[in-house]
């Protein structure tokens, strides 16, 4: 058998095979055609693919669908961060600008400095404690330090420290916000790194009540309010709040606070 015959035969065979398969596939793709939006697939490819649900949708594919349908915000994926948002923006055709990353901030300085009303035996979970009573701390607004937020975090970024208060490892945190949702007392809030002054308390109780149970709770004495040169701190319902737009981080309130519950980072 000559070389030419062999080559021709080989070509014919494989070519024929290719032809048959090509036709078959085309027919099949027509037959089982599924309407998909190509944009959705492109978005899916960009997303991290962890299916963590931090966006509030059932997995990355679902989020992609919603984004394309403009039901979800472009920056809805906290895990992917700004890069992902930008890329999604490119696909969908919208401009996005970068915003500063936010981390959970613990609005309670109590922990071991706040009295316990009873002795608790049971599962380590703040919600579970609340189900049994109004919470073990004397303060109804404070952190119980039972770690519901720790368990809610899919990235192991929160841990309960020695002072029975949660702290956040910013290297691991993806700002997904699951811990904020999980906290039964709404103690966590998002704060940017540039926002330096925070009130470490969440209690709307009267000064006397707070003082009875907590060494560092805000008693609503208004000293900070009076001393703030920028008028950036206000006491409402016995709790001081910092207006971050006005705050210049001068540190006067931190010094003046009799309860040491204003913190400068």
């Amino acid at each position: 058998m000559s070389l030419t015959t062999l080559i021709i035969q080989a070509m014919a065979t494989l070519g024929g095979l290719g032809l048959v398969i090509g036709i078959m596939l085309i027919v099949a793709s027509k037959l089982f055609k599924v309407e998909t939006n190509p944009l959705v697939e492109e978005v899916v490819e960009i997303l991290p693919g962890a299916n963590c649900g931090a966006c509030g949708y059932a997995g990355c594919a679902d989020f992609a669908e919603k984004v394309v349908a403009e039901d979800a915000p472009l920056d809805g994926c906290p895990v992917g961060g700004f890069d992902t948002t930008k890329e999604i923006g490119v696909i969908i055709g919208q401009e996005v600008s970068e915003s500063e990353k936010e981390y959970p901030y613990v609005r309670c300085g109590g922990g071991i400095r706040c009295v316990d009303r009873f002795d608790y035996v049971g599962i380590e979970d703040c919600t579970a404690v609340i189900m049994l009573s109004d919470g073990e701390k004397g303060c109804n607004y404070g952190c119980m330090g039972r770690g519901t937020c720790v368990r809610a975090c899919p990235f192991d970024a929160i841990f309960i420290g020695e002072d029975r208060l949660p702290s956040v490892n910013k290297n691991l945190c993806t700002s997904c916000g699951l811990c904020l949702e999980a906290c039964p007392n709404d103690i966590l809030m998002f704060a940017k790194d540039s926002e330096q002054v925070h009130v470490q308390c969440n209690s709307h109780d009267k000064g006397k009540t707070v003082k009875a149970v907590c060494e560092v709770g805000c008693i609503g004495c208004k000293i900070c309010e009076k001393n703030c040169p920028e008028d950036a701190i206000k006491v409402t319902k016995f709790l001081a709040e910092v207006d971050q737009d006005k705050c210049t981080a001068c540190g006067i309130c931190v010094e003046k606070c009799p309860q040491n519950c204003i913190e400068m980072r």
Partner: protein
Amino acid sequence: MTDSNKDIVIIIGKLVLISVIASALLAVTFVPTNEQLKKNYAEARTSTLAEIMPSAAEFEAIYGDTVINDEGDKEILYYRAKDSSGNLVGYAFFRKQVGAQGMIEVAGGVDSSFNAITGIGIMAHTETPGLGSKIADDPFKSQFTDVKVADLSLSKSGGAIDSITGATISSQAVIDALNEQVGDIKMAEA
């Protein structure tokens, strides 16, 4: 996925084109390599035969009835091994056997009285590297030199051959190949 018939034709065309080019490439490579392969194969056979039957000087092929290729060559069943003076000293053979992964081609020699194996060789195999592939190594092969046909079984079944650890199937396949082929030759010669 595709919008028009034209696209479809283009896609199929490209698919076919690539297959055709691929096959052409393969065919072009195949022809010279195949020639070389045949040469290698023949050489390997000759050298193996000499190795497993050092006493023989000449091997006379015994052909079967089956035609195996276009040139009309017949299947070689086994070889009669003769020494330099032309006396029959034994029989040599090649045999394929299913191993743990695929075919094992075993070469073997047996003395003229079908009493003992003179030696074996492994021509080709695809056994698991590191386990079954040890059948091609000397520690295993040398066990067969001058072993009695009667003892041709694994040591755990009372024979003289120690199986390779973890590769009982491969070891057994070699032994089976030898046993069966010796039996076949015995029949043919009887």
